[in-house]
């Protein structure tokens, strides 16, 4: 394989987790790249839902926003947004929900709301968006987040969406329908919840990444799974496909948009 960036590796690692007929609730950025990479490689029949209301969308380039026209044009259908959340997500029809966040804690709870106190934050983040109910209802949640001690923290400033709460079955007792964050894909490898404590532990490393590197990037004492897998680097096919997708996307987004000034 040719040299690849950590973002590329994260994207490939996430894509590999997806199965051919999974129904994915896709966010913008790395998850969108991962889902579309899966679609262009081993999972051609994957179903992509974007919260803007597009169902079964098959974009040729990645959207910048969650509602680019490309998503609507290539969708099986476009429904009003409330139906996405009620008739699809809440109804338990989503297999995989992707989430990002500003902060994650050791039980996979996420913060995308504020740093500092809610009423007087030092940093106002965009907010929860679809995350609280994706986290509640999707059969599995995959989190994609670059690691640092600022993002993988001992204590969240705000819980925007629930992972395993305090662990040890707390989520199951809460009545949440979905299975919670089954995988956290980050830029050294992957974390997953311990079967009993539900604390995120290191389960896999990118080839060449080290446990020390992982520990240095995590803001709590990172536990190791009994077995740490090695995640093979992106294959040439994966990398070529992903880079071609990115290249098409860059080209499309660089294409100047004519300002729609009427004539006359």
């Amino acid at each position: 394989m040719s040299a690849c960036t950590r973002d590329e590796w994260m994207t490939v690692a996430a894509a590999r987790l997806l199965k051919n007929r999974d129904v994915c609730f896709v966010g913008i950025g790395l998850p969108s790249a991962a889902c579309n990479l899966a679609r262009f490689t081993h999972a051609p029949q994957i179903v992509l839902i974007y919260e803007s209301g597009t169902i079964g969308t098959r974009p040729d380039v990645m959207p910048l926003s969650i509602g680019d026209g490309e998503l609507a044009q290539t969708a099986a259908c476009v429904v009003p947004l409330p139906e996405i959340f009620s008739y699809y997500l809440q109804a338990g029809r989503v297999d995989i929900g992707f989430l990002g966040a500003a902060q994650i804690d050791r039980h996979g709870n996420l913060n995308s709301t504020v740093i500092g106190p809610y009423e007087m934050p030092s940093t106002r983040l965009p907010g929860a968006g679809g995350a609280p109910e994706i986290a509640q209802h999707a059969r599995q949640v995959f989190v994609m987040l670059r690691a640092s001690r600022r993002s993988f923290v001992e204590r969240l400033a705000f819980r925007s969406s629930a992972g395993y709460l305090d662990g040890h079955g707390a989520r199951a007792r809460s009545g949440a329908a979905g299975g919670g964050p089954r995988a956290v894909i980050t830029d050294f490898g992957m974390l997953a919840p311990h079967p009993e404590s539900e604390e995120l532990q290191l389960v896999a490393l990118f080839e060449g990444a080290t446990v020390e590197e992982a520990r240095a990037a995590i803001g709590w004492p990172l536990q190791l799974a009994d077995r740490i897998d090695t995640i093979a680097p992106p294959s040439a096919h994966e990398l070529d496909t992903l880079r071609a997708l990115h290249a098409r996307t860059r080209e499309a987004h660089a294409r100047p948009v004519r300002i729609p000034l009427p004539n006359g």
Partner: protein
Amino acid sequence: MSLADAIERFVSDGASVALEGFTHLIPFAAGHELIRQRRRELHLIRMTPDLIYDQLIGMGCARKLTFSWGGNPGVGSLHRLRDAVENQWPRALELDEHSHAGMAAAFCAGAARLPFGVLRGYLDTDLPAHNPNIRRVACPFTGEVLAAVPALNPDVTILHAQRADRAGNVAIEGILGATREAALAATTLIVTVEEIVDTLPPAMNGIVLPHWVVTAVAHCPGGAYPSYAQGHYARDNAFYKQWDEIARDRPRFLAWMQRHVLATGDHRAFLASLQQEAA
């Protein structure tokens, strides 16, 4: 009716106003007109406060914001929104913060004229602790406790759409977001459109807002730019990226608003001023 007349007549200071459109069909022209007419104390409502809300907030038009995600999609922060929340500049902004699912349920309840919406949501999040508009309701059959949100019924909803006919029927194509529910939830509904036609194309199961739910239609080509109108023009993703730079800095933001919005008479002049700048 011209857009300026519609805003003049139907949007008063202090009104609750929803400019909806989910990435697609965001009514920029109408938002700019609110700024030109210097509306104040608005309660802005929108699932995804976009650049147009960043501008309204930065220009001091808003007292309160009901929302569920406030960022520049795919780019980053809305710096004017952040500045208002973090530094109360140019004024403090009250937040009524929801999740997408909660706000969608609130719009649906508003459209159905029910007092509240129900969802399985907000479970074990910190949002209810900070928002008294997120409560609980028990199912009268199973006893299960669910989340409840109060209906959203904006004084005025403003949308942009592709076309209207002369009777005032409005047809929307493509990504809808919560536009339809926000429209039906409003007391007053203003729609700007790319074109006004004699007869709309056959709709059957398509999306039409019937003329008797529409208060005013204003012909406003390009009225969603830099957002987009499916079938008419594409989203100007480059502008969304540029905005990050423009909005990051208070003086630069104010200068941009002065030059392109306050100093332009209408949306056509706004578009022309951008074209001139680009040339």
